[in-house]
């Protein structure tokens, strides 16, 4: 009989994970020679500058197209593309710049991080720390605050995520709470107290921008400002980031110390990889989070014989793994996908020289 689990980081599962040695534990890592790893970790400003320049041209172009054709049906494709850049591509920009790996220049990482955070409505300090925990304790129940598909999965709720609901409104509500100088109890467990004043300041700045956007719309008697900034572009544009994001961990193991068991790498086309900044190499990213996005394809080549064969496309990932797993977990929440390893790979559960791997079962 499956015992429904408490995914809260404040619940009993937190201490249980600590007792089981799953918190802040040593994970399995593919052994890569130091010289090669140093080369992989090298930062460059060129690739992200090129990508962000292209992003900016497209962003402004779609924004102008939406404005130019506003009032006609022709504005729809422009706003659809604008929305994807506003509410989906910013997920990977937030992510890479939050890791500090996208650019060599830290000020550029910080600048893009702050802008992307606002667009995707993830408060920068809160999410920096929640994502830090996500990497320390990936899909460890009671420890990881970023588990999306808790078991048994609430499929309707997951579908609503594609429309930014309730994500966008929850983000506004939390910003309002933070603006009054308070943090939620779970946030207090992973955000150090020294960072709290920054949380309050950012929340206040955000609220001012949102209020100014609404005021501008009211003043102009037009929906147009709301199409460009704030809740609306996130809601109509976030669907692709959710589509990508669900491929990362859904259906895979909980409470294991081997990223090959709890993360999924998916092959993507160049357009998707531009939007997603190579986060489709998710096993590789979790095993070596300080490797920049532009080096992940090289890292994948180096370690591919030690990891499960990637899903050939996002469609294959959904049809063969994610959708069946979500449906099966409705009846059997303990159901877990265990992806086969190539022959010669370090088996799941073996204990290599520099890490620990725990079986999924």
């Amino acid at each position, binding site marked *: 009989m499956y015992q429904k689990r408490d995914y809260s980081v404040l619940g009993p599962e937190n201490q249980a994970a600590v007792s089981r040695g799953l918190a802040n534990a040593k994970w399995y890592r593919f052994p890569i020679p130091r010289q090669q790893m140093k080369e992989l970790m090298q930062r460059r400003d060129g690739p992200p500058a090129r990508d962000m320049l292209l992003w900016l041209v497209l962003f402004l172009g779609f924004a102008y197209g939406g404005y130019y054709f506003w009032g006609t049906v022709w504005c729809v494709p422009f706003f659809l593309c604008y929305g994807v850049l506003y509410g989906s591509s910013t997920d990977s920009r937030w992510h890479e710049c939050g890791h500090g790996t996208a650019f060599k220049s830290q000020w550029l990482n910080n600048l893009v991080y702050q802008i992307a955070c606002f667009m995707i409505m993830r408060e920068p300090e809160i999410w920096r720390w929640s994502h830090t925990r996500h*990497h320390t304790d990936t899909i460890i129940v009671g420890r990881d605050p970023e588990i999306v598909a808790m078991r048994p999965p609430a499929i309707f709720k997951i579908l609503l995520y594609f429309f930014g609901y309730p994500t966008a409104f929850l983000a506004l509500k939390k910003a309002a709470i933070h603006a009054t100088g308070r943090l939620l109890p779970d946030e207090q467990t992973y955000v150090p107290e020294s960072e709290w004043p920054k949380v309050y300041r950012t929340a206040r700045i955000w609220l001012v921008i949102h209020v100014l956007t609404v005021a501008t719309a009211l003043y102009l008697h037009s929906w147009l400002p709301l199409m460009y900034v704030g809740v609306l572009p996130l809601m109509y544009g976030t669907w692709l980031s959710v589509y990508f994001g669900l491929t990362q961990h859904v259906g895979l193991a909980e409470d294991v110390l081997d990223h090959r068991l709890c993360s999924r790498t998916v092959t993507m086309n160049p357009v998707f990889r531009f939007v997603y900044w190579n986060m489709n190499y998710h096993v590789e990213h979790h095993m070596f989070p300080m490797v920049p996005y532009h080096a992940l394809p090289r890292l994948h080549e180096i370690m591919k014989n030690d990891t499960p064969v990637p899903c050939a496309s996002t469609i294959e990932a959904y049809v063969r793994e994610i959708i069946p797993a979500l449906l099966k977990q409705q009846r059997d929440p303990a159901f877990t996908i265990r992806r086969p390893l190539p022959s010669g790979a370090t088996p799941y559960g073996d204990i290599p020289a520099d890490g620990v791997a725990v079986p999924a079962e």
Partner: protein
Amino acid sequence: MAEKWVDACAADAVEEEDVIQFNHGGNAYAIYRSPEDQYYATDGLCTHEQVELADGLVMGDIIECPMHNGRFNYKTGEAKGAPVCVNLKTYPVKVEGGRVLIRLD
């Protein structure tokens, strides 16, 4: 109290702009060689979540933790911002006869 210099490693065991780990007395230390060919030593574990810094990347004066992008100035031990909030302990270093020695008082 007498100074206690401990032989950590051969000077050429550390590449320029790189770091290696040195374990002594149950503790981990990180030995750095700067781009200017100077040697430095700090505690070997990140003050954030005790990750071994010797797996991280040295960039100029900075050591970056391989796990969460915690950055320290390894010459001064200064934590450079989130997610590291506590400075890293540094140790005096000297090079004698091609060996790197660190002072552990």
